[in-house]
């Protein structure tokens, strides 16, 4: 079992601009349907040094995936950081590029840049309990953090995973969520906004699950990812429960284009989300969370 490096695997500043902007070809090894509109793509890393770079990521980082002839998008890495032989991305089909990516066939070539961005604070959270709050596709960027904690279980106290989805058919990684709930010192709860007729589980927004967990505020790190509205409410709830701003981390999703802080599309206050984020502490990002994105 390897340990993660203490600094991001790839520093944007350390790479020449041409290298940063050049997609490297990776072979699509498999496509797995997760829900009615969400798929997980497994890629074989590009060969050579680029492949080594691409597969060395830290939980929370993202890659730029280029569907040649269609377009390029930032996609969070959803796989196990300690399985460098594969690059795993979970993609919701919501637009032309994502729809094209998820309909590719094994053997096709996809361009990969990265990994980019700041990671979840796995080192800082050592010795603490970790509370994961995810909504919708936001569970994908958090899964590598969960894998990391499960691989290094002795380094962390309790693991609590709260997941909200739109409806039962939208629940991502459902089998894993159920399996994690059976592990020692681990609680994994899910809820849906709309239960329909046959759903026997919890109905309500994700913040309603907070009552079902016991947190020691001073001993807990919270990692949040999902729609910004959901994260804002979850953040307020956590602050009410006594967590401090430096213990709460959010993955922000803005209009990222270049992934290297060159183009400015993802500027949020003083930050470029692609370079200074996507993971921010609440202390850093809270003043900018209500800023309207044009």
């Amino acid at each position: 079992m390897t340990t993660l490096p203490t600094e991001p695997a790839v520093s944007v500043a350390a790479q020449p601009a041409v290298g940063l902007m050049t997609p490297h070809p990776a072979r699509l090894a498999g496509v797995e349907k997760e829900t009615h509109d969400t798929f997980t793509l497994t890629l074989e890393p590009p060969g050579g040094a680029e492949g080594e770079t691409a597969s060395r990521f830290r939980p929370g980082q993202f890659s730029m995936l280029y569907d040649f002839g269609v377009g390029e998008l930032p996609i969070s890495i959803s796989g196990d950081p300690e399985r460098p032989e594969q690059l795993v991305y979970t993609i919701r089909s919501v637009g032309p590029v994502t729809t094209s990516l998820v309909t590719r066939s094994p053997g096709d070539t996809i361009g990969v840049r990265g990994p980019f961005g700041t990671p979840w604070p796995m080192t800082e959270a050592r010795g603490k309990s970790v509370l994961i709050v995810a909504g919708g596709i936001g569970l994908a960027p958090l899964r590598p953090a969960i894998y990391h904690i499960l691989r290094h279980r002795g380094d962390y106290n309790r693991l609590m995973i709260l997941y909200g989805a739109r409806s039962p058919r939208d629940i991502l990684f459902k089998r894993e969520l159920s399996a994690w709930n059976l592990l020692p010192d681990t609680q994994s709860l899910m809820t849906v906004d709309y239960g329909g007729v046959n759903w026997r589980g919890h109905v309500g927004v994700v913040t309603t699950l907070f009552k079902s967990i016991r947190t020691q505020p001073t001993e807990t790190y919270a990692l949040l990812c999902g729609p910004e509205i959901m994260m804002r409410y979850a953040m307020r709830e956590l602050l009410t429960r006594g967590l401090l701003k430096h213990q709460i981390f959010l993955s922000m999703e803005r209009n990222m284009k270049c992934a290297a802080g060159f183009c400015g599309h993802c500027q949020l206050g003083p930050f470029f989300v692609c370079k200074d984020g996507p993971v921010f502490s609440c202390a850093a990002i809270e003043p900018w969370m209500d800023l309207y994105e044009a």
Partner: protein
Amino acid sequence: MTTVQIQSALAGHPFLASLAESDIEKLAALAFKVNFQPEQIIFREGDPSSFFYLILSGHIALEIQAPGRVLRIQTVGEGDELGWSSLLASVNKQFQARSLEPVTALAFDGAQIVAQCEADPSFGFRLLRKVLAIVAERLRSTRLQLLDVYAGKGGGGQ
């Protein structure tokens, strides 16, 4: 469950957090323990509002009947309350409540709580502030559900 045990359970219930011991004692005098079996209908939509519950363990679904189907609109559980409409006069139950697993709760006759509030308005004010917080939380949650925040673009790098 003895009065002391009821008092202890009430003191530890999130709904009553920060209430004075004297307020807890007043409520303990009105409370009694109830158990519900899985799938038991606790009340139906349209029933007269009579009981107010503080849930100690287990989960309960709030449902609404539609032609040919029952829709679950919310789930409440340990640490939640159920049946706040019993504290309002002339309001029948708006939803059906069904236990999903063995449920233990402390029950109160709503009319008795209201009478206690009228007899001691200071206590009544403190208690109704708690109820108002619950109503506000439910309203906020319902608004968020209506926003359908997971539709379309929704985080996760996409």
